[in-house]
């Protein structure tokens, strides 16, 4: 078990290291990184000063050392737009995103599980077809557009829900829906197919032979097993939510790290962007590592695979 955790941990660290190299390399491939880091109104003197400060006048391997050493200390440079350390800006915004993600996740599960179960139980009927159609539509709908359409319908036409920024509970509704829909289609199909598989197994036949009702068999015996693949994919879903949060928070002017990513892109704030990317990567890898370890703990087969 310890070996398993250690191996997975080292893999994650290696991946982060590669990512840091990519970030370091990209800033240099495209020309002098000083130009990416400076404000547009910077003078030649500022530039020379920054180059000295960052050690850009030194050989590449020393620069790499400086960059990595800085990153390890949590120093990823100052945001150009916010004029303070990029990591600080990130952690100021992070709680806002963390308030939104669980809602979206729970909402998606609350829709995907019942629909997936219904589709599996009534397989081949109109219910299955409708749920299939919903999934197909879900896969084809760009979530940034869905958010805008929701704003148009519920905020502008009906005037029942706020369209942007944070506030009371009603501010959470539309962003959570937009972000949740991002997951629903895939989850629903996964629940359906894994439930169908479980429903064909021996212990389910036994449960039926014992005379248990359909409801108990499906919801208690089958669903528990059918949800295993869904929980294994938690890490993947989390990464998807982090991705989805970029467009969702942009559409709803939600002051989280997704919106911050967008700002870093449109303001060409390279130090902020590299910090956002590295920190998000650490979070996603951390969650994935946690899920894997938990899973290996629960299911010994994984450890020795």
């Amino acid at each position, binding site marked *: 078990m310890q070996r398993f955790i250690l191996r997975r941990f080292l893999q994650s660290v290696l991946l982060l290291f590669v990512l840091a190299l990519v970030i370091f390399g990209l800033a240099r491939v*495209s020309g002098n990184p000083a130009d990416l880091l400076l404000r547009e109104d910077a003078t030649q003197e500022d530039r020379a000063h920054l180059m000295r400060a960052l050690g850009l006048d030194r050989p590449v391997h020393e620069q790499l050392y400086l960059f990595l050493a800085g990153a390890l200390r949590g120093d990823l440079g100052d945001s150009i737009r916010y004029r303070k350390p990029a990591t600080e800006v990130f952690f100021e915004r992070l709680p806002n995103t963390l308030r939104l993600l669980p809602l979206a996740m729970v909402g998606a599960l609350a829709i995907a599980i019942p629909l997936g179960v219904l589709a599996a139980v009534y397989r081949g009927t109109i219910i299955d077809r409708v749920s299939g159609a919903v999934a197909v539509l879900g*896969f084809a709908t760009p979530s940034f*557009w869905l958010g805008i*359409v929701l704003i148009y319908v519920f905020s502008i036409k009906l005037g029942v829900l706020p369209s942007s920024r944070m506030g009371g509970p009603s501010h959470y509704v539309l962003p959570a829906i937009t972000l949740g829909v991002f997951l629903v289609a895939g989850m629903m199909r996964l629940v359906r197919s894994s439930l169908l598989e479980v429903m064909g197994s021996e212990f389910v036949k036994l449960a039926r032979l014992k005379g248990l009702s359909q409801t108990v068999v499906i919801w208690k015996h089958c669903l528990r097993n059918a949800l295993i693949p869904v929980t294994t994919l938690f890490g993947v879903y989390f990464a998807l939510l982090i991705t989805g949060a970029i467009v969702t928070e942009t559409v709803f002017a939600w002051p989280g790290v997704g919106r911050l990513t967008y700002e870093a892109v449109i303001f060409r704030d390279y130090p902020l962007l590299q910090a956002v990317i590295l920190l*998000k990567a650490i979070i996603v890898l951390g969650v994935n590592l946690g899920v894997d370890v938990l899973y290996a703990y629960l299911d010994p087969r994984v450890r020795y695979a």
Partner: protein
Amino acid sequence: MARVEERIEVGIGSSPAAEVSTRPRSRGDLARLPWVSFFIIAVLVLVAVLAPLVAPHSATEQSLPDKLRPPAWQEGGSTKHLLGTDVLGRDVLSRLIYGARVSLIVAAAALLAGGGVGLMVGIVSGYLGGRVDSFLMRVVDATLTFPTILIALLLAVSLGQGLQTIAIAITVLIWARFARVVRGEVLAVKARDFVALARVHGCSHLRIMAIHIVPNVLNTFMVLLTLHIGFVIIVEASLSFLGAGIPPPTPSWGQMVADGRSHIASAWWLSVVPGAAIMLVVLAFNLFGDWLRDWLDPRLRQV
């Protein structure tokens, strides 16, 4: 944005026989062909190719007196601008038509690049096996659990926006999915007698991969390509929406949705129309891809 992966993999573990038997199909069954998809795709391709001929106006020419005209069927609209005009007085329909071109070119470039890389990695990994295989598959797994869109954004900022950057960015996003599926396929092909025969005959590994393996995974590859068209269009639109796509003034659907966002209260058509176009086209390509998969390579349902 990574949803296509689930579309390919939802079949994980489902019992193959039961899954396939729900959809009996024969090749001659015309009624089962996705005619609507064919039609939408055909219209899209025609319109994109013939853009200068079919577009009623220029896609980039501004005309401030005509700004924010609603679509023809709404009060104040005219048949001169069927889908209305934007803030700069540009014709929405014309921009949509030229935008179709951009979407298709980007999709083609990105799929060829990303699919090509994935195909090569998949073949090398599956054929050579051993350490190379386990290393490459680790990289694939790492890529699949990582929010790769961040890398795409990073590329756009550091390399500058443009077709090339998007193609590289989307390559980073999709190569791993191709590699994984192709590798699985190669494992099956590799075990067949003709590969051993070729080896006995004195073929080099490189030759076997190029001449004997590639043609046998081509069906799978084509299906994967088709299944990813819709995904790539959505990714391109999302990148454009986030200001990291094809730079303006070249019209792109994602950019159009983004531009219309701040005018949603007064001019709904600016965002809604291009978004609906994206959805329709992606839907058509996805249904087409599903059909092609069932027809050419039903095993992929269970990959």
